[in-house]
């Protein structure tokens, strides 16, 4: 079972962002969306560390470590971009000015619950801006792998890890499919090429409806 590559998932998520949207990208797989935006739209990327108008990753020799994204990787500023301090940056988030945020996740449930800050084990928990984003962004979407490295489903009915937020996730992009949490099931939006519905159902720890 293969499905979409990481870049194809990011490009698929980018395709759903409307022209004119203000968008925040979380750490990890969502960062890639910045480089794969559809060229026909003007989309303003917000980075929680004080950037509006975040551009693509620079060439290695043009790196400036005082111009980095939430994942601490070098980025650029588009013409017309702006810098601001952290309290203003999170006023944009908490004050419901961000139209869409795309986060990574350990687990998402069919009710839209998300866990992405504590693995529950010995590793120190790390919340960053995730709780602010799920509480404040107008729409929360997730890019994640469909299963753990051990093959256990990460799209499930009940969280096994501490929640970041409840009933907040509206859409999930994985290597197998695009799905919307719909209460007690995931509603299938699109299957990745070569993936059959029964394989998707088997890889998912909650009911999937194609209807």
């Amino acid at each position, binding site marked *: 079972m293969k499905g979409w590559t990481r870049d194809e998932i990011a490009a698929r998520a980018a395709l759903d962002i409307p022209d004119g949207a203000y968008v925040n990208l979380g750490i990890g797989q969502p960062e890639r969306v910045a480089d794969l935006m559809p060229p026909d739209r003007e989309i303003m990327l917000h*980075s*929680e*560390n*004080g*950037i509006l108008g975040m551009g693509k990753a620079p060439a290695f020799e043009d790196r*400036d*470590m*005082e*111009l*980095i994204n939430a994942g*601490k990787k070098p980025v650029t*500023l588009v013409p017309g971009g702006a*810098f*601001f*301090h*952290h*309290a203003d*940056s*999170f006023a944009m*988030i*908490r004050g419901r000015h961000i139209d869409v945020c795309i986060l990574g996740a350990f687990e998402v449930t069919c009710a839209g619950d998300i866990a992405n800050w*504590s693995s529950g084990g*010995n590793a*120190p*928990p*790390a*919340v*960053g*801006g*995730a*709780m*602010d984003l799920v*509480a*404040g962004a107008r729409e929360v979407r997730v890019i994640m792998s469909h299963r753990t490295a051990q093959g256990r489903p990460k799209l499930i009915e009940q969280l096994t890890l*501490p*929640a*970041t*937020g*409840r009933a907040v996730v509206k859409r999930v992009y994985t290597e197998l499919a695009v799905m919307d949490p719909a209460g007690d099931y995931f509603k299938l939006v699109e299957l990745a090429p070569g993936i059959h519905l029964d394989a998707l159902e088997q890889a998912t720890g909650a009911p999937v409806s194609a209807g």
Partner: protein
Amino acid sequence: MIDKRCATIAQALHDVHDGATILISGFGEAGNPTELIHALIEQGARDLTVVNNNAGNGEIGLALLLKQRRVRKIVCSFPRGSHGHVFDELYHARQIELELVPQGTLAERIRAAGAGIPAFYTATGAGTEIANGKETRTFGGREYLMETAIHADFALIKAERADRWGNLVYNKAARNFAPVMAMAAATTIVQARHVVEPGELDPEAIVTPSIFVDRIVHVPDPVRESDHLAALDKERAS
């Protein structure tokens, strides 16, 4: 005459006491006042509570302060880094206390202290483990947590340009927490790459007005954490 410039970095940090609460600016590498932190290591204060977004990277700046066992407690949102082994080891050995705070709540708790607001309500963290032990209140049918201001004895921050009165301008995303931290500490100490005379900074572009700044140290060529991390990687690979 107002002149907040200090002749030496040691002079700027001379009165940091054991047990002090210290705000340290920076997000990842951007905006870390590494030279001030190294001077704090030299100065010797211990049993510190440090507030920073992260918990240090490599063995430089905040990570080095932790490694020297000078920090009793760290308040941060994301104690994880590409080279976060110093904090990890202390955390697993239970030799450091961690208060994990969502990033926006961290920034606002610091801003609140600087603005004279003792507490505020936020939806961030409601219904999660972060809410444990916190007062909650419902506004318009939604649950909010009460979060309290974070006051500090000292703030150590990095600016691009300062004038001798303490007006500050930052560089790109290195601004991050510095403006709110400058407001929230009893004593705010700045390391600036350029120090100029009053009137040289565009008043429309000043980000931190001088009233929030107490001491300025000129550090024209600050160390780059990324160079240190690259050297650390090279050392490990060989």
